[in-house]
């Protein structure tokens, strides 16, 4: 059992979030940040920067990372496929297409996250409807529907970029596709919180069945799992978590794919350890990635999705090849 590693991962995640608070346009010493954290009502610039700019960024990065990683672990387990991520639900593609069309139509920027959220969930419903077989979900149909619908919506995004008359519109779409938390604040987190909580609760309801689903639907039924119910719970949970993540940070790729693999190596496959480990590792990874994204080309920012791809892909390949290597 590797349960003892969970507290260690928690400490690492807290350290990553703490380190992320240090990053930003203004150089602020750790002691000043600690003081601002301890005195949130103090009237000075540092407190304002920490509580109104950096804390919401770190919190959003951590929440998005945790949500995508949990969604990835749930879907990978349910579909018995290590190569799927929460965006297979069609959430990101639907949100991207809606936002691209909205930008093209000149819709006001503040509305875009909510629009992306709603469009993402509607697309997830469409994918789920296509994946339905009998009273349950057909894993192969889900993969096919997810990939097909995502491809269709990606084409809509490409169309929108090609048709955009202004460079600004195309850049807005591309910035959203690359993932970013720039300009996000507490109010965004408050908007997404109910969906994050609902998604997490559904994940907790489905979690006990997740281990059994990994060894096949027949075996899961044989040990008493209501497979149809578990599948719908997982799909609903993943869709809500991914949609909330998309509304907060745009498309943040690779977290939902890679983090479950990392967490499995750290704590094993059992869902009761895997899901908390995914949440903590996802939070740590995104918080650190956001800190780097804010620092390397300060005062401007790198898109976090791009940065995660740069870090994530080599890390994933390294882990995967290590795993394949005979002992």
């Amino acid at each position, binding site marked *: 059992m590797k349960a003892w590693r969970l507290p260690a991962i928690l400490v690492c995640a807290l350290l990553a979030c703490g380190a992320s608070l240090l990053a930003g346009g203004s150089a602020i010493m750790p002691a000043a940040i600690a003081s601002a954290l301890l005195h949130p009502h103090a009237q000075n610039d540092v407190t304002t920067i920490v509580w109104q700019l950096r804390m919401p960024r770190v919190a959003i990065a951590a929440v998005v990372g945790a949500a995508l990683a949990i969604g990835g672990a749930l879907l990978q387990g349910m579909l018995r496929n290590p190569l799927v991520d929460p965006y297979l639900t069609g959430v990101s593609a639907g949100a991207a297409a809606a936002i691209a069309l909205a930008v093209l139509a000149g819709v006001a920027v503040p509305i875009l996250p909510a629009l992306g959220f709603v469009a993402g969930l509607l697309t997830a419903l469409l994918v789920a409807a296509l994946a339905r077989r009998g009273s349950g979900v057909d894993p192969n149909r889900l993969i096919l529907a997810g990939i097909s619908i995502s491809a269709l919506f990606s084409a809509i995004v490409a169309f929108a970029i090609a048709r955009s008359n202004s460079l600004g519109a195309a850049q807005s779409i591309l910035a959203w596709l690359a993932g970013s938390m720039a300009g996000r604040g507490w109010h965004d987190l408050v908007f997404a919180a109910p969906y994050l909580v609902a998604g997490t609760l559904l994940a907790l309801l489905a979690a006990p069945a997740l281990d059994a689903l990994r060894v096949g639907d027949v*075996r899961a039924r044989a040990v*008493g799992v209501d497979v149809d119910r578990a599948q719908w719970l997982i799909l609903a949970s993943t869709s809500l978590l991914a949609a909330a993540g998309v509304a907060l940070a745009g498309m943040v790729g690779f977290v939902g794919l890679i983090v479950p693999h990392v967490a499995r190596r750290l704590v094993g496959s*059992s869902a*009761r350890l895997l899901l908390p480990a995914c949440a903590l590792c996802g939070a740590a990874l995104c918080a650190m990635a956001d800190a780097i994204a804010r620092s390397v080309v300060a005062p401007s920012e790198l898109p976090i999705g791009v940065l995660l791809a740069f870090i994530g892909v080599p890390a994933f390949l390294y882990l995967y090849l290590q795993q394949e290597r005979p002992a």
Partner: protein
Amino acid sequence: MIALETVTIGVGGRTLVRDISARIGAGEFVAVLGPNGVGKTTLMRALGGLRPALAGNIKLGDVPLRSLAATERARAIAFVTSDEAMLETLRVRDVVAIGRYPHHPWWEWGETVADDAAIESALRAVRLEGEERRLLTTLSSGERQRVWIAMGLAQATPVLLLDEPTAHLDVRVAHEILSLLRTLADDGRTVVCVLHDLNDAAAYADRLMLLGCERMLAYDVPDRVLRPDLIERAYGIAVTRVETSDGPRVFAAVNSAAVGSPSR
């Protein structure tokens, strides 16, 4: 313990076997035999409550199987199958622990002392103690089969159903598995399993259920089921019966002229 009352099974709108009536007693080892596609797996899934019968009743004691909730059923019947893919990162103990699912309310995530004891006992029974940490992908077919059986044993059910537990196994490992099943039956478990080797079935099982021609052709002790006429009717192949000190054995005729179609 298990009663089949004029049970008809089928799949995809097609009827496979009609009007099966049989009683399987506690502590009995029953082997289900029949040609490919006859409905053995479908029957096992119906016995396990995983697929409804098209008609008739399956009872566990006096209780109709379909009236049981999924977890109630899973505390009474374990179903062991060897097909279906899995993720690579599963370890032996993780898989065996899945058998404890029906013994937990949904909010109870942790393993209890009873879980530990059941998992250890299941691993001991299949002689995989000390292998808990191994990845499933590093196991041989025989070892993996033992893991699936251990998962069924960890369910701690009075009834154990197994779908082709000796498929793809060499003769020694197959006999190890069958000996294990025999021991489990001798210890009081009801064991029902699908087998393809008629002589293995005769050597280890108390009774044989022979399916063919859309019906149950025989359900009796091996001596009365391994009759050349019955076997030919089920499989469409002529066999020779030989009496040995261990009981009757049958051998297929090797000339192709003896191979026909199962008669109706």
